[in-house]
């Protein structure tokens, strides 16, 4: 059984103007040990696909009109809120783009980390080695020690001294390490990373990428890595799925898709990457006639499928 199996996922968002279809039939399968890069332009539905797996979209606006999202054989779109909370943190870890806004500014790093650890341990007591009979203080102390050990292993030195500090006392790269540690302390099977390196400088970015790569090798987890950066995909991912306007237009192993892209949109996306020698007038975007050709090709393939 696949770790994550999304099939024919349709999502509409409600607003004052009515319902707008956002995802129009997503199919994607993630196995353990795979790192899937989900690429595409802004608004193509990458992040919403990621949030759907943890069902974090507000039920008042997000309306699932079809398909299913099977995590370990269980459909998350039909799971109870309680079951979803157990999945989040415990089995599905998530990290987000901006480490400066994703930590609560009013609480110590240690407090936030210990809470994350204790809630993951509620359904998986083995991750902290708890038997469930310990006192509240003993549990918090165990969670604290486990957090320190994890932070140290993620390259945050003097973690013991840093735990009582507040987020604003940390650099961006340190905060992202803390956020990855918070996502990983529950030892999840799937990590969803929504542009985790976009807000970081290049050297910190490569450290974070190496850390994610190491997690896959050590723990055999599956990763969904959402990004616009095809360079990062080439470095890190084993597979890639290219999204365009709520559909996946091309997918496959990175070596195949990036070397010999079949879909016109993938080729256009790769053509839009500037080279070091590019001048302003030679920068290529995706607009005008090119976009018309992409639309025409997608319409043609859609007709083929239905025929």
């Amino acid at each position, binding site marked *: 059984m696949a770790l994550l199996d999304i099939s024919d996922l349709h999502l509409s968002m409600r607003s004052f103007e009515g319902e707008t279809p956002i995802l129009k039939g997503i199919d994607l399968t993630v196995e353990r040990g795979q790192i899937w890069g989900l690429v595409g332009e802004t608004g193509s539905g990458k992040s919403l696909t990621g949030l759907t797996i943890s069902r*974090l979209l507000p039920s008042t606006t997000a309306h699932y009109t079809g398909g299913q999202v099977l995590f370990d054989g269980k459909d998350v779109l039909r799971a109870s809120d309680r079951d979803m909370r157990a999945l*989040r943190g415990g089995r599905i870890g998530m990290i987000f783009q901006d480490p400066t806004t994703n930590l609560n500014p009013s609480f110590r790093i240690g407090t936030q980390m210990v809470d994350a650890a204790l809630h993951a341990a509620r359904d998986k007591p083995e991750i902290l080695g708890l038997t469930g009979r310990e006192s509240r203080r003993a549990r918090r102390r165990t969670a604290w020690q486990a957090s320190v050990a994890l932070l140290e292993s993620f390259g945050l030195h003097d973690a013991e001294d840093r735990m009582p500090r507040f987020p604003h006392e940390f650099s961006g790269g340190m905060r992202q390490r803390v956020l990855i540690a918070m996502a990983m302390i529950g030892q999840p099977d799937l990590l969803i990373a929504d542009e985790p390196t976009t807000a970081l400088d290049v050297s910190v970015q490569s450290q974070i990428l190496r850390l994610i790569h190491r997690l896959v090798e050590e723990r055999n987890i599956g990763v969904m890595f959402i990004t616009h950066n095809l360079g990062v995909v080439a470095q890190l991912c084993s597979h890639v799925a290219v999204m365009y306007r709520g559909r996946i237009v091309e997918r496959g192993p990175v070596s195949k898709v990036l070397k010999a892209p079949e879909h016109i949109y993938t080729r256009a996306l790769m053509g839009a990457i500037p080279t070091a020698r590019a001048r302003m007038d030679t920068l290529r975007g995706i607009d005008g006639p090119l976009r018309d050709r992409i639309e025409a090709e997608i319409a043609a393939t859609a007709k083929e499928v239905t025929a």
Partner: protein
Amino acid sequence: MLWYVIRRLLLIIPTLLGLTVIVFAIARLLPGDPVGLAAGPNATPEVIASVAAEFGLDKPIPVQYWNYLTGLLQGDWGVSLFSRRPVIDDLAEFVPATLELVIAALLIAVIVGIPLGLLAAIRRDGIFDYLTRTVSLGAIAMPRFFLGLLLQLAFAMALNWLPLSGRFPLIEFPPDRITGFYTVDAILIGDWHALGLALQHLALPALALSLSPLATILRMMRASTIEVLQQDYILTERALGIPPWIILFKYTLRNAVSATLTVIGLYVSWLLGGTVLVETIFDWPGIGLYSTQAILGQDFMPVIGVTLVIAMIYLVTSVIVDILQAVLNPKVRLQ
């Protein structure tokens, strides 16, 4: 942290000093003839001169100010032209009454406003949210004296549950003076009968005074909770599987209250200035009633005294708010 508190407290001194200059100048340079009013309509020039000499008002204004300032530091806040009582004695009697009223009103506003605001925010656009939004708009708009009259009509006249006015029944003795707050004094000496009476008298004026700040705190709390709930870190906390009640009462509450706290601090001065009407309607013997009489009689020593006391309370409150802010918000601590 301790150094920060000391520095903030020391900064109060020059502020107050500057305030004495301004208030003294305004009170003395305003047109009018307080000495003539105090001496009476039929006073001869000799009598007026002797009254002026008695209060030191025949000297140049800078000398008067210097005498006032040195007296202030020795606990002599001047003498009322009319009652001939030392201002400090009057203040000792009236300030606790007003403070008791203001603190009671603020407690009601905070204890009711914060949970209701939180509830309105999590049930956003629900029936409760619409209801509180409409009612609170009315509460902010309604004049306090009108609300006071309505409360008197309902609870004192029609239902006869609570006393109409006053701070304590005229036929009974208030609890022995320790702090000047009847409720606190009654608790300190363990006189539960007196405590009940004091609370009965406190209820209506405190309620009338509390409604506007209550509504403002509620709306502020609703707005800041909604804003905090949309922050990235709340999404991260949800993605970590942390239960909604912990996200709300631990991680959201502190951030939301920190924004509301500033409003609460500002309301202290608003309430101190706003007690005048409520005190008049409920015949509450506080600084509102006292200063009204003083202003009408051009009795400037009490006016200056009351202004200074209100300023002092306001300055101390703002220091307390800043300290609480630093406790809630670690970023403030650094600055």
